[in-house]
Structures are given as structure tokens and as C-alpha cells.
């Protein structure tokens, strides 16, 4: 069986994506809507805090809830890490994804000033990938062992690690 296509929701998401792209042309590089009706905003890394505060505070886009903050690693790109923020709007019952990019050495603005929930998520991204978050209140390891060296989720980190257990 195939999921039925919801044209109405697709059109609404396209319209909202164009609305946001019109208001914030300085930071938004691309807007796309997947076939599963998921809206994604592709951002320049300088614009993380402006875009997230806009999505949280604006009346037409009250995305007050940060559902997830992750990163993905694509080693072949110039900026290998892609930071992904998933936001949920309780007032309008809709979700949105905001994506940014960075390489291993460039710090990224912390989203803690906008969403308190980003605290441990950013610690996890730092621990697993090595992406440094500027202005984070307490950036230290959260999942790896105390003397662990390396960033496990990177694609060039071997599956069973470097240390024999």
C-alpha cells in the first residue's frame, strides 16, 4: 500500500515556506517540501539565531517547541556536517525542519538562548561529531566515557573504535 497524497497540506506547506523565505531572504538559501509533507528551510549558519527566534516568536509561526537537534556527516562535502533542528508548533499543529552546515573547525551559534531544550542536544552533537557551539553555557561530553578521544559518529571513525576493550 502507498500513503495517499495530501495535496491540501502540501500546498499549505509550500505557501508557508514561500512566506518565510520572503521575510528572511538574508539567511534562507533554499526551501523544500518533501513528498511526505515535511517543510525544510536550508539556512546559512550566521542566521541560526535570527531564524529560530523568528519561528518561535512570530504570530504566524509559533514554533515554540524544539523537538530535536541533530547533525549528519557527509565527508565528501566542503562543509561536512549538517545541523538539523526539528521544531513543532502547538498552536498550528505543524512541524518544520531547519538545516545549517559547518565544517570541523568553524563554531556555530548555540540555540540555547532561543530554546532551553537545545542544551543537552548540543552537548551530544559536540561529543559525537565535534561541532563546537559558541555561547553554550556548559559544553562538555555527555555520552562517551571520561577519557574518550575522538568523535564516534563521524564517518571516518571505525565501528569498534580505536581502543581494545
Amino acid at each position, binding site marked *: 500500500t502507498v500513503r495517499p497524497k495530501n495535496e491540501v497540506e502540501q500546498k499549505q506547506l509550500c505557501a508557508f515556506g514561500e*512566506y518565510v523565505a*520572503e*521575510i*528572511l*531572504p*538574508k*539567511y*534562507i*538559501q*533554499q526551501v523544500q517540501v518533501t513528498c511526505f509533507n515535511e517543510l525544510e528551510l*536550508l539556512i*546559512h549558519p*550566521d*542566521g541560526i539565531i*535570527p531564524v529560530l*527566534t*523568528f519561528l*518561535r*516568536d*512570530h*504570530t*504566524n509561526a*509559533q514554533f515554540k517547541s524544539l523537538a530535536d537537534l541533530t547533525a549528519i556527516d*557527509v565527508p*565528501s*562535502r*566542503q*562543509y561536512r556536517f549538517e545541523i538539523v533542528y526539528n521544531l513543532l508548533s502547538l*498552536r498550528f499543529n505543524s512541524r518544520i525542519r531547519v538545516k545549517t*552546515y559547518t565544517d570541523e573547525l568553524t563554531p556555530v551559534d548555540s540555540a540555547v538562548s532561543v530554546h532551553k531544550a537545545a542544551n543537552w542536544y548540543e552537548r551530544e552533537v559536540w561529543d559525537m561529531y565535534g561541532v563546537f557551539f559558541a555561547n553554550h553555557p556548559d559544553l562538555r561530553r555527555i555520552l562517551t566515557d571520561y577519557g574518550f578521544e575522538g568523535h564516534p559518529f563521524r564517518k571516518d571513525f571505525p565501528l569498534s573504535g580505536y581502543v581494545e576493550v
Partner: protein
Amino acid sequence: QTTGLVGLAVAENPHERLRILYTKILGVLQNIPKDAAYRKYTEQIVNERFDLVKKETDVQKLQDKLNSGQIEEVIVQAENELSLARKMVQWKPWEPLVEEPPSDQWRWPI
């Protein structure tokens, strides 16, 4: 008399508070260039809500017409919009794109 929401006290004289907040927002928006999309859309939203607040004196009916939850939530939302407008004046998001991404950055599948 209660809002039903934790942490939100009942607002006495919500019309006055909303009037002050909306006039402040419109004042801050004057500092943005007239052709910016943010100023256009926010002025539209604020003027719509302001007209509804001016016309309707009964709190219950105002809540139904605004269709945006309790009046206290509308007040919180207006305060958020005001702080956002102040930050927008500094960030200036209506300018053209800061930097183009590398051509293979957003290509998926790789």
C-alpha cells in the same frame, strides 16, 4: 476566574494591555524600510488584531473572534512579537542573501 493554564495569571483589563502592546509594535516597525516583507505582514496581522480588540469589548467574544486561545495567551504572543520586532531592527533580515552555499552542499542523494 482562571485561565486554566499553569503559570498564566488572569489579566485584568486585557484591552488596555493589548492596545499598548500593539501601538508599541507598530512604533518599532516604523524603523524598518517600508518595502520589507516582515514589516508588511506584521503590520497586517497587528492591524487586524488591533481592529478586533477596538471593536469588541466582551472578553469571551474577543477570544472567539481572534481564534487564538485565551486572551492571556494573545497578550504573551504580542509581547513575543514586540521583542522579535526589536531584534529584527538589529538583524535586518530583508537584505539579500549573505553567502551562497557550495554547489554540492544541499544535493541529496550525494
